[in-house]
């Protein structure tokens, strides 16, 4: 579904990604692991069109999408849940959700609104509350729900567990699995390596801008060097 081939992304003169290649097959959950500064978020931003890779190629649904803008990517069915959630704090929960469907002009938006509020009952409860007044976990759910409002084929999640209590992290991972089971392909960036590997089908490990390891998630979960570096004992 998504195929990233040898992209190099720079911040000014500093090279953040070095020949990164990633494949996301349709229907799967793929996770990208790595320490801080390894280039995980840069990879996500390059895919979503927020950053332009200097060279390399990105293909989505069989089409070359290298250099497309974020709104063009979204209209092709790729939605990003950015790191740090990016809630519109001055808009209500409902308005935030409606913004997720900004590009849609079909009549099923209302129906989808009900659907995502069924999935996240807390959002229905808080629908007229301002986005900025929600707790961290609720904001993360709102951010995911908002991305779902665009009916994405591929959902990019950038560190959805960041700064959340362990119980809520469990919730978020369960929801990610549910979304995937309903037919949305997921690309997940995580620090929480153990959790991510448990739900993912395939995993990539980034170190200083390079893919140093990749393979089926189960294999990596039992790989001694991964255990050493990311999972602890």
């Amino acid at each position, binding site marked *: 579904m998504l195929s990233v081939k040898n992209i190099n992304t720079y911040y000014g003169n500093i090279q953040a990604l070095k020949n990164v290649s990633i494949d996301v097959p349709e229907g799967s959950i793929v996770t990208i692991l790595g320490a801080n500064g390894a280039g995980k978020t840069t990879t996500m931003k390059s895919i979503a069109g927020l950053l332009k890779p200097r060279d390399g190629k990105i293909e989505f649904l069989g089409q070359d999408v290298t250099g497309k803008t*974020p709104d063009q990517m979204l209209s092709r069915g790729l939605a990003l849940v950015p790191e740090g959630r990016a809630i519109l704090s001055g808009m209500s929960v409902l308005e935030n959700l409606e913004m997720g469907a900004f590009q849609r002009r079909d009549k099923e938006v209302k129906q989808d609104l009900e659907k995502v509020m069924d999935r996240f009952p807390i959002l229905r409860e808080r629908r007229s509350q301002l986005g900025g007044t929600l707790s961290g976990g609720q904001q993360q759910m709102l951010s995911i729900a908002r991305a779902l409002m665009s009916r994405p084929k591929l959902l990019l999640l950038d560190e959805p567990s960041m700064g959340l209590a362990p119980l809520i992290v469990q919730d978020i991972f369960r929801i990610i699995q549910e979304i995937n089971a309903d037919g949305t392909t997921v690309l997940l960036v995580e620090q929480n390596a153990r959790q991510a590997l448990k739900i993912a089908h395939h995993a990539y490990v980034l170190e200083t801008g390079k893919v140093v390891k990749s393979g089926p998630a189960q294999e990596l979960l039992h790989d001694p060097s991964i255990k050493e570096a990311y999972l602890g004992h």
Partner: protein
Amino acid sequence: MLAELINPYYLQVLSFILINIILGVSIYITLSTGQLSLGHAGFMGIGAYASAILTLDYHMPLVVGIVVGAILAGIVGLCIGIPTLRLQGVYLAIATLGFGEVIRVLFINLEGLTKGAVGISSIPHIGRELVKGLQDFGFKASMIGLKNNQLISLSVFLLLLIITLLIIAFFIRQTNSRVGRAFAAIKMDERAAEAMGVNITYYKVLAFAQGAMVAGFAGALFAHVTAYISPADFSYHRAVEILIFAIFGGSEVIWGPIFGAAFLTAMPEILREVNEYRYMIYGVLLVVMMAFRPQGLIDTQMIYKLKQRRKKKGVS
């Protein structure tokens, strides 16, 4: 009875209030995407000069002059908006301030076209043209017991009132549409808006060009109401004055700059002796507002509360 109430001086003040309200709306549009512009005096000047020159030198009808003036200002806004898109906050303010000064200097130096620092006088007056038109239909001021100059002032005021209401209605509608939502999202968090698939380049340039066009429109009306314009009318002071409408009244909702423009235009007329200290008062006002109520007098919460109260009354 009616004739005594209609005082051309009051009507003149009211007309200036209406023009300033349109200017207040113009800065509101630009600010609604979070872009701070100090170039609105320049856009206003472009509209004013374009319309004055077209009607005076090329004998175009007033309507054509005003519309072309507004569109020209919008096009210039588009040309300024695209390259300055990357600039934010104070950097954009400085760039647009520079633009406004360039425009003013051009007005002074293009003497063949603009008559330089002396300015353009005897520009066709909206009121006189309107009354002339009415007379062609056989309508005379005396028929409703008015003097000619009363009818002129009255017709200017009524025309401006209709135009202002239409502009306000249009932008209220826009604020509640998807365009308005996109503006609000960009103002709150540009990155988030981008992730939601809002084409921020398009909407920011749209807001900037719209603001420029409305300012140009107000400028063109200004030229045909005062019948005299000079480069000094569109200086840095004017840009700050326009911005103050929004800062004083508030830039979160459209009623903010409307109130700001109305109040700040009426105040020096009511308190004549204060007029000389106008810019000093503006300065003090800016400092006080920033310290105590940075969002302006009228903000979202105030409108929300008013609506709630009205709802409650409706129920009981």
